[in-house]
């Protein structure tokens, strides 16, 4: 084992560097302060933020972005961000990895269900007749309309028009 060469996948690290929040993985010096404070690590051996950062430093794409990746066990508590002496912001690196997994199509199916409502309706919770009834019973005002068309417009992945055209548009 000792004779095995450690191979670092820099291509993956470059990709991670370009995802918002991913760049800070470079600062990790493997001190384990995050592990000591991590509630998920306390309750399961399957999750260890230091090991996730080590895998990021090695560029272990398969393990991090595979279907069984431990990144989804993170409780999103921000304790590691609070504690890290190196400003790695481990949770943000994990979020960057999650964004990459979504792109790759390996995120848990549940995630789409839990997040698609916002893009479709502008709200994370579905508005049903029960919601209206319960609000009425408590004497609360009617819900306000959600500007969903505006939301869809800012979320659309459109190609930016070529610079010249854009300038023309502005002049008109």
């Amino acid at each position, binding site marked *: 084992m000792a004779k095995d060469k450690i191979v670092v996948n820099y291509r993956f690290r470059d990709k991670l560097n370009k995802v918002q929040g991913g760049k800070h993985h470079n600062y990790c010096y493997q001190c384990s302060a995050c592990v000591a404070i991590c509630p998920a690590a306390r309750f399961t051996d399957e999750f260890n933020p230091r090991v996730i950062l080590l895998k990021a430093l090695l560029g272990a794409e398969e393990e991090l972005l595979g279907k069984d990746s431990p990144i989804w066990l993170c409780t999103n508590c921000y304790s590691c961000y609070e504690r890290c002496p190196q400003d790695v912001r481990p949770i943000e690196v994990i979020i960057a990895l999650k964004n990459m997994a979504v792109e790759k199509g390996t995120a848990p199916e549940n995630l789409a269900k*839990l997040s698609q409502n916002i893009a479709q309706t502008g709200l994370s919770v579905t508005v049903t007749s029960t919601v209206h009834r319960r609000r009425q019973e408590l004497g609360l005002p009617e819900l306000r309309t959600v500007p969903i068309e505006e939301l869809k417009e800012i979320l659309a992945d459109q190609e*930016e028009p070529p610079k010249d055209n854009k300038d023309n548009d502005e002049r008109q």
Partner: protein
Amino acid sequence: MKIIPFWGCMMPLKYPQMELAIRKTMPNLGVELVDVDGFTCCPDPIYFKARDKIKWLTIAARNLAVAEETGLDVVTMCSGCISTLRETQYTLEEDPALKDEVNKRLKRVNKEYKGKVKVSHAVVLIRDELGLDVVKKSVKQPLEEIKVAIHYGCHILKPSQIMHVDDADYPSILDDFITAMGAIPVEHKEKLLCCGKGCMDEDLPLDMTESIFASIEASSADCMGLICPTCFSSFDLGQIMISRKRGKTYNIPVIYLFQLLGLAQGMEPEEVGLHTHRIKADKIIEKMKDKAKV
């Protein structure tokens, strides 16, 4: 004082009793809530952020831009909303190129996030701008002898370099809030443990909530007090789940701190929607009524 309430989704849609408690108690503190149109989900700092952080920042920046146009400060009542909005402010401040990228998207709908709006959580507004004396003065029926196990939840405190609410390891903001209502904060060993809701696993969140329930059960607390609707779901409905899946019944009432404030201000339990909770708060109501008779 006039403020813009940012309700988010969980409170108006899932736990309207929390919105009710805010609407009833805040005027007694001299706060006028000015509802405005144009907000969407904050969006949530767990699932939507995991899906696409740039779009997450874009939606949040749009909400901030809507708030900016009003010229008033924005106050959230939900730990998730404050987390998203504050982190967005911090991230866009830290990275001007990213701010430009987000603003390019907002420009499509003639909006711009300038970075001028002040966003805080209701408990921070009360501590820093109104003062706890205002809370004390609003109390008509002090919650004497009501022992409350505070659950801080993660997002109101961490990371403190973004949130600037309190010491993340030794917070006192919520303890001080209920003390002003006359209640007694009770220490317990899992006071700062995460509720586990953001973990995408079946067992782990239950292990965590169960650890918190056991810790509260071992204390002398009459109820649990919190400010986060997501934590509330882990603990109120969560106790039913624990009972069903693990056969252990705790029966610890879980109360949003503004509901407690409503009781302290002399409101009936129904007026702050306590009857809508899975775990009934009858025991502490009786305790309060006994106290009032004496």
